[in-house]
Structures are given as C-alpha cells and as structure tokens.
C-alpha cells in the first residue's frame, strides 16, 4: 500500500460569511490535513461553522484568508470542472425527482466527465455500475428515486458522488434522517470506501457516539472558534471532546465516551454487581439523575441509596430492590423503580434526607 499522502490540506484558513457587507469570521487559523484513505468526522456544536467549512472546501463560498490545497493544487486555481473531478459532495438538500431512476441519478454524477450533450459512453456506464456496486445500491438501480427510503436514497446519493470519481468526498450530515441501523450501515460503508478506494472522506455529524467508534480522525470545532484534529481516543483523553460538548446539563464520561445528564446534587446510588441486569440498572439510575458509585462511603450528610437485583432465578416479579434508610422496596420493572424514585424527589424537593420510610405513591 502506498504511504498516505495528504490529499486535502488547509493552512491558516480563515472562514466565515458576509452579513450586510460585514465579515463574520466563524473559524480562523485552521490548519489540518486529510490523507488518502482516511475517514474523518467533523464535529462541533450547532452554529460552530461545520457547514461553513464544508461550503468553503467545496468552493461554494470564498475563504477570507489562508489556502486550501486539493490533490496538490490550490483550490482557488482549479476550473469548476476540474474541481468537480476531484471533489464531490453529498448535501442535505432533498432530492426528489419524479420519473428519474436511481441509475439515472447516479449517471448525473458523470457531468464533469461527459461531453457537450452529456451522452454516456461505455466507460461512463462502467463507472456508474461500479459506483452502485460499491455502495451496495445496485439492486435499487431500476427504482424511481421517489420510491426509495431515506437510507436507500442516501446510498444512491453517495453512489452519485462516487460517479464523479473524486479524490475527496464531503458529506453534510448524511446520517441525519436515518434510523440507527441505517446510520451504522452508512458509516461503515463510508469507512470501507475510504479504506478500499483510497478516498479521503469528511462528513459532518451530530452523532458523537458513531463518530467516536468509526472515524479515523475527528475534526473538532471548539467553542472558541478553533479546529482541533486527532484520533477520537486522543481527543477523549486530552479532554478536548469533553470541553467542546459538556455543559451544566450534560456530563461526558471519559471511560465510556457517553454523555449523561449531570447528576442532581445529593442524588447518589450504590450498585454492586456485574450482570447485564446490573448494567441496565445503572443506566436507569443515571437517567434519573443519580451519581452511581460502587463504594460505600457516603458524603456524611446523605448516605447513598442502595440498589440491586434479586438473585432468585425464574421469578421476574419483584426483581429490583432499593434500600433507603434501612427500608427495602421491591419493584417489578425499572419503570416502576425510577417512577418511585422521582416521586420521592418531588415529594420533598428541598427537604433534608428522609428519616422514615414513606409509603409508596
């Protein structure tokens, strides 16, 4: 395999948009590169400039300063057709065209390669077929694009971009309207395309979980308007991810890479055990705003409630138990358990720890 070489590199790029003749700088001093075969996810809070960056890279809008080099040449020096042969995009624009088959839609991607009348030659057909097979959308070829599901259409749109035979593929939130399995499928497909075809792929997403698990590189736009890049794990460990997304409402768990609601002050629960049931019990408690620990030490003021799973096999009734202030309660489901816990909280929102058991609501 050839050594990786940057096919897209940005140096000291300053981007933004013009509003009423005034420049609004969104990102500045962006210096980052993407290699052949790399799959990168561009992350950042809403309004941080993800779309602006994508629009600048695809030359829909000009940059304010700095340079972008695409496959060895400066972006600004390319003719529009040359640019289209190096860089293709999948946008959020909804494409619903009556009487157009998926095959014809992918064929539209041949635009920068065909002659004056757009006639498709044998090589064009070969490329279209290759693009459809690479995205596993060949079985959709004869269908009208209006009949496709969102996931299917997205694959066809990627095939259309591939038909341009680009070096770089930019995608703007391609997973936004997909269900979870389709999102995972699509991301896996992009990752494979990057690796097997030597494409450099950059996609914006809000799906942090998916990005953490699949991207080779994350481009992370931070709140102060700079762009950090690195392997997902590095960005977790050095705290940049946490810094970019955490707020008073959500906390980032560095161990799992998940975001959870910030625990309510004083709500602590102790769970010991490693079974699947214990795992989901913890999840339920986290969801209800508890800080879940394993150790016994309280903070003096308020002892943690203790929760667990009964070990009697075969009888699902009263499987879950909670001990508060030496009184044990049993619950058939985690729904009952969390409902009871939140009832406890709302009964006495500001009261000191209860000294005697309350009847269940």
């Amino acid at each position, binding site marked *: 395999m050839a050594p990786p070489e940057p096919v897209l590199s940005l140096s000291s790029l300053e981007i933004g948009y013009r509003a009423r003749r005034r420049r609004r700088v969104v990102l500045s001093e962006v210096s980052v590169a993407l290699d052949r075969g790399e799959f990168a996810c561009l992350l950042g809070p809403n309004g941080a400039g993800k779309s602006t960056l994508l629009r600048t890279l695809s030359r829909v809008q000009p940059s304010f300063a700095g340079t972008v080099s695409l496959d060895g040449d400066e972006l600004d020096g390319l003719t*529009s057709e040359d640019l289209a042969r190096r860089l*293709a995009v999948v946008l959020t624009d909804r494409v619903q065209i009556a*009487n*157009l088959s998926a*095959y014809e839609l992918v064929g539209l991607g041949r635009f*920068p390669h065909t002659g004056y*009348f757009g006639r498709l030659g044998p090589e064009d057909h070969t490329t279209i077929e290759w693009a459809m097979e690479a995205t*596993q959308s060949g079985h959709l070829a*004869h269908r009208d694009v209006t009949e496709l599901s969102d996931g299917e259409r997205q694959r066809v749109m990627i095939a259309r971009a591939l038909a341009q035979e680009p070096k770089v593929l930019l995608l703007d939130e391609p997973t936004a309207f997909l269900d979870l399995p389709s999102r995972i499928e699509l991301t896996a497909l992009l990752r494979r395309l990057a690796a097997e075809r030597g494409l450099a792929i950059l996609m914006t997403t809000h799906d942090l979980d998916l990005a953490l698990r699949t991207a080779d590189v994350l481009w992370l736009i931070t709140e102060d308007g700079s762009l950090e890049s690195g392997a997902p794990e590095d960005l977790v460990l050095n705290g940049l991810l946490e810094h970019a997304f955490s707020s008073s409402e959500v906390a980032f768990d560095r161990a799992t890479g998940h975001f959870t609601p910030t625990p309510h002050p004083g709500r602590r629960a102790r769970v010991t055990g490693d079974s699947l049931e214990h795992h989901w019990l913890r999840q339920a408690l986290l969801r209800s705003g508890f800080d879940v620990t394993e150790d016994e030490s309280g903070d003096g003021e308020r002892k943690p409630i203790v929760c667990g799973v009964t070990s009697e096999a075969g009888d699902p009734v009263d499987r879950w138990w909670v001990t508060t202030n030496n009184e044990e309660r049993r619950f058939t489901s985690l729904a009952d358990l969390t409902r009871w816990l939140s009832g406890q909280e709302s009964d006495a929102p500001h009261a000191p720890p209860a000294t005697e058991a309350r009847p269940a609501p």
Partner: protein
Amino acid sequence: MTSSTDAVSLRQRPNIETARTRGRTRTLVAFSLLIAVFILAVLLSLSWSSVRVPWDEVARILLGRPAERDAWTTIVLDIRLPRVITATLVGVALGLAGLQMQAVFRNPLASPYTLGVVSGASLGAALVIIVLPGLTVGLYRDGAAASGVAQALSSVGLVFGAALGAGVILLAMLVVASIVRDMVIVLLLGVVLSALIGALVTVLVFFADPNQTRVFVEWGFGSFQRVRWGDVPLFATAVGTGTVVATLSMKQLNALLMGENYARSMGLNVRRARTLTLTSASILAGAVVAFAGPIAFLGIAIPHITRGIFGSADHRILVPGSALTGASVALGCGLLAEMPNSNLTLPVNAATAIVGGPIAFWVLLRMRRGWGS
C-alpha cells in the same frame, strides 16, 4: 467475504441491466407516435376548417400542382399554411420555454407567464393599441374596408410593442435573478410584477375608447391567424434561436434537476446557465406573444404532458419531446378553435384552456410526488 460480495453482485446485476435500458422502447415508440400525430395534425389543419379541402387536393397544392379550384390553392397556401406554421412555432416555443422555466426554477408551476414576460408584452401591446391609436385607427372599425397600410402598420406596431414590453420585463427579471439567489423569491417577484403590470394595463383599458378596447381584448384572445408569410422568417428565427439554446443546454438542465447546489458541485456555472436559459425562454415567449398574442396554458401544460408521455426526467428526451408535443397540441387547439364545418371561430385561448386544462389537471394529479418542497 468474497462469496457474499459475489452474491450481492449477482443480485444487483439484473437490476442494473434493467435500469440501463429502462424506457428505451417507450422513448422510441413515443417519438414515433408523436411524429405521426404531428403530421396528422398538420394535414388535418390544412384540409379541415370552415371550407373543406380534400386531402388529395391538399397534397397536390403542397406539391405545387394546380388544384381543382384556384380558391383552394389560395386558402391552403396563403391562409392555412401560415396558420399551421404559426401554431407549430407557438407550440414549440411555449413547450420549450415552459420546460426551461420549470427546470431553472425547479417548480412545476413556473411558466413564461409567471416571469412577467407575457404581462410585459401585454403592456406593450396595450400601449400600441391604446396610446398610439394612430397606428391602429380604422383597423377594426370597419373590418375589411380598413386600409392596407394601416393594417400593416398596426401589425408591425403590435409585434414591436409586445416584443419591446417582453424584452424590458425580461431584462428587469434577469437583473433581479442575478441579485436574488433564491429562485422561489424570483418566481414570486415575477408573479407580483405581473399583477402590477396587469393593473397598469387595466388603467389603460379603462381610459380607452370602446374600439381600442375591443382591439386590445381581441389581441388578448390569441390567434394563429395574424402571421402573414412576411412575418414568418422573423418569427421562425426567434423560435429557432430559443430552440438551439434549449438543445445546447440539455445537459445543464439535467444537472439543475438536483438543485443549484449540486449542479454547482458538479462543475456547472449556474449563473451563466440560468441567464442563458431565462433569456432563451423569454425570447421564445416574447415571440409568441408578439405574433400570436398571450396564448394561455400551453407553457405550463406541455412539459408536464411530455413528462407523462415519456415517463422521463431526462432533458435530452424532454427537449425534443416538448417541442413535438407542443407543436401537436397547438395544432390541435387551432383546429378546435376553427370549429370545422362551421362559420364560428373561437378564441385560441379558449381552445388552449379547454384542451390544456384537463390534461394538465390529470398529469398533475398523477404526479403528486416528486417535486418535494
């Protein structure tokens, strides 16, 4: 791993083959039928009207042989042939203009009317008919007795006025379209502008004397009968220019199917394509209004009818398809307006609405999906 990939390929292959050849037969059959219908419409229009000229006589006259009656030669060559050419040019022009407008605006309701070109032409015509009455005086006041000079002047003035009006509005809308990027806004501005100009025309008509009003109203009915042989070269040149532009921009129109952002990402110079297409659509529509009056409905209906016939969104099919369909439909409307075997002649606009309306209605109902918001 390899075997599963092979399995996928096996599953995909037949569908890809189907997709590649999809619609080829239908396209061929549809083109053949449309050409046949067009020829039939031409022959019918030449032979069948208030006076019936037998088919074989029509053929003899067209081949330059003497007909059984001299009057037939005059009727066919000097009255009906220009009418047939006019209807054909009108249909081709409006079909293509509508197709271009719908592609550029990505809106099924876009037509030359919505851009204000037709109202501009109306204003021009109204100015010529009402404000410059010297040109038209005596034209309709005592019918056939009107002096030939006045008639010639008036028709030249009308053509000139309508073309000028269409051209001014075209330029204004092109300037607007180059400033305003959002095509929906441009479309709505066209609608608003049309209403505004309509109001001006209403004011002019309100202060006009009844004779002038009548001339203007008759102009508004649309007619395929105003074009004389002398007008044909100019009309044909205008329509030919628009047709050439439409033919050369088929690939660009296809790229615009997916919207401007995608078109730009594939290397299309969107602004240039848009300007060129709108210019061509305006020349086509302006020529029609100038020579035949504000013909209603065809511009919006013909592209939809063509899409229905061919079941395709490919402009390499739709451009020739719309031209052919447009010519046939316009000829059909002309025939209907003539009310064969009667002395009655309907306004062409009534015929185009009667023919085009229900077809457009049906096609639009069938479309439902496909023009997402």
